[in-house]
């Protein structure tokens, strides 16, 4: 199954996303914030990154920008978790290099159907 990196500063969110992914048989690595996520990403070569946007320190958009600079993550799907459904937020995400977004609140089924959209 796929290697997925989940980055969120909220541990409940992170646990929930991880749990859903693990239930589906994925191999999940967790990052506590943008910086932790970046260091976990290196060497992991994840098949998918799911990151929160609002995080202290390095936010999800910065993380996305920096990941895109890494050879391993040039084409890797990166989904940003956001509560903002507004078009400008989505555009910010896209501009940073995100593949797509997951709008909170979401349920596990929605999460998985979105993940399946990008994972082979």
């Amino acid at each position, binding site marked *: 199954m796929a290697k997925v990196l989940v980055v969120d500063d909220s541990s409940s969110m992170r646990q929930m996303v991880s*749990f859903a992914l693990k239930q589906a048989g994925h191999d999940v690595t967790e990052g506590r914030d943008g910086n932790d996520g970046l260091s976990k990403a290196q060497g992991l070569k994840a098949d998918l990154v799911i990151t929160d946007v609002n995080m202290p320190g390095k936010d999800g958009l910065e993380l996305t920008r920096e990941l895109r600079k890494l050879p391993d993550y040039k*084409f890797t799907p990166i989904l940003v978790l956001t509560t903002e459904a507004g078009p400008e937020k989505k555009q910010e995400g896209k501009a940073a290099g995100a*593949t797509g977004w997951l709008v909170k609140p*979401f349920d596990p089924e929605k999460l998985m159907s979105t993940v399946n959209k*990008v994972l082979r």
Partner: protein
Amino acid sequence: MSMDMSQFTEAFLEESFEGLEHMETELLALNAGDEETLHTIFRAAHSIKGGAGTFGFSAISEFTHGMETLLDRMRNGQQETTPEIVNLLLRAVDVLRGQLQAARDGGEADPAEAAEVRALIEATLGDAAPDATPDALAPTVGGNVDGSGPENGPGDSDGTPRGWRIHFRPHADLLRTGNDPLRMFEVLEELGELTVHCDAEGLPATLEGYDPEASYLAWTLELRGDADRADIEEVFEWVEDECDLTIEPLETAGDSTGAHPPADPAPDGSGPESTPPGGEDSAAGAPARAASKPTESSSMRVNAAKIDALIDMVGELVITQSMLTDISEQMEEDPSRVEQQIERLRSGLAELERNTRELQESVMGIRMVPIAQVFNRFPRLVHDLSGQLGKQIDLQMEGELTEIDKTVLEHLGDPLVHLVRNAIDHGIEMPDERSAAGKDPTGRVTLEAYHRGGNVVIEIRDDGRGMNSDRILEKARAAGLLRPDQNPEPHEILQYIFEPGLSTADQVSDLSGRGVGMDVVKKNIRGLGGNIELHSEPGRGSRVTIRLPLTLSIMDGQLLKIHDETFVIPLIAIVESLQTEPENVKQAFGKLPLYRLRDEYIPVVDLAALFGQAEPSPMPDRALLVVAEADNQRVALRVDDLLGQQQVVIKTLETNFRRVPGTAGATILGDGQVALILDVAGIARMTSGRDTRAA
């Protein structure tokens, strides 16, 4: 696939309470134009909203939405930061706290206050709150993208094949965001019968200038089936701005207008307006919440660094273990070299001892949390109280990072609130009164925590009017707490404030209130194995000192030997140990030994006799005494030998037996033997009971 996410609810709630505390602290520290602080506050509100929605607490996420919008405007400079706004947000924090508590405990938050605060926030936002409702109220994220509503499937009702033709021309950069046309087509394929025509005309004629990471191809796709336009749009949702996309019904389809599938309500669930505010959905969510109702202390957050350290130590332990295994094997293989191996064995065991000790300390450390978790509530309390009372108060906090056992911490909140409230209410004078007394009109209340020995010490100091010991003495006499002829030291007089008799005294005098509940405070602190003391100087202020054990289950103990039994006495209770001098040994009524220590006569306890385990033995002229104190009572224990001091793990006798008077439980010593832990206060009571009978 259905998954039960209620298991994460507790973590979410805990996190949210923490977030609220943060918000409160930052709000109290907020100055106009302080953008960074506003970001932090915003982020906290934002996380609570997101989580609340996800975990099904829609009343909370709805309520937070207004706060979030307001905070967003504040950080963008669209809304001025005024004290009124800050107070409004603080009220909102309280509402939110109530809602979260209700979510945790299954109760119900005050809907009136929530509605009022919400209305105030909305009024502040004014009519110009265009985006005040969208995503917060949507229960799920549907395929309803950017306002394009659910659309009829193509084709008509006569059953002819229906479908869509899709022209899809990615822009050059589409691949660089991790989107993959192939993957999109696979998703489309799940929606119906798909045919794909690739248009390679966009490919450059020569390799010169060819960018392997760019997208040059275009596709025409035909999807047959009854997929909705929205389904297709959802597939292209993330790339709509990075491609040219047209979706049109297949020509074979007839008039599509009448073909609304009858049993297909809006696929994205209910629209925003169908979610009732508050009430109904919180009731719907209640069973799930009640099922996972956590008790206050059933879970805790642990700093990841502490876990990492533990893992390291376990690693070391494993290494030590394999080393010891290796030694034993070598001893078996070559018995002639046992001598050399014994040396290695010794150092291996020393290593094991170190590992074990460190592991123990670290495991205990997991229960340790910074006292800031309790201190954090005081800026708010002081803010509110000083506003109510018209007093000016400067709150100082020191040593917030001092760590204390989680259970101790949980029981510390109420006593501390009581003490701080008292300091402000009764200690600190009104500004003009202070000025008249030549003091700074702004009073100062200090909360300080620090470690001393095996204890956490917490001091609550104020520079207020102090306490009048004459009045306390009067009251203590009136309450019958001491005889008319008793004349305690001024310092001792103050401690009567903690007596229940004084608490119920009338509240008219200047020490009103100070006594109310102080006995409860003392009881709580004692229940935690700590003690509390008051110092005060009239006109200068008061200081309450609380001493608490670092943790409830581990204690620093002094091991001692009495009649061949080993006992443990809490180190904190020991005043001093001494060799008796014959001239100071007295016998009241010829049989009740007292020892004169400076100007005090202390009853000497023959523990074996008191415990009914040996006949009373006469007090020798020279003996070893351990003077211990608890509850302001001193006893001198006659011991045969003082052994070492060590940390002991406290185990209750009640698990398999019952409480045993005179003991505070038992512990297991290094050799596996059980040693009883002495309860000094209990022994003092047993001793005085014996005295009364004897007299």
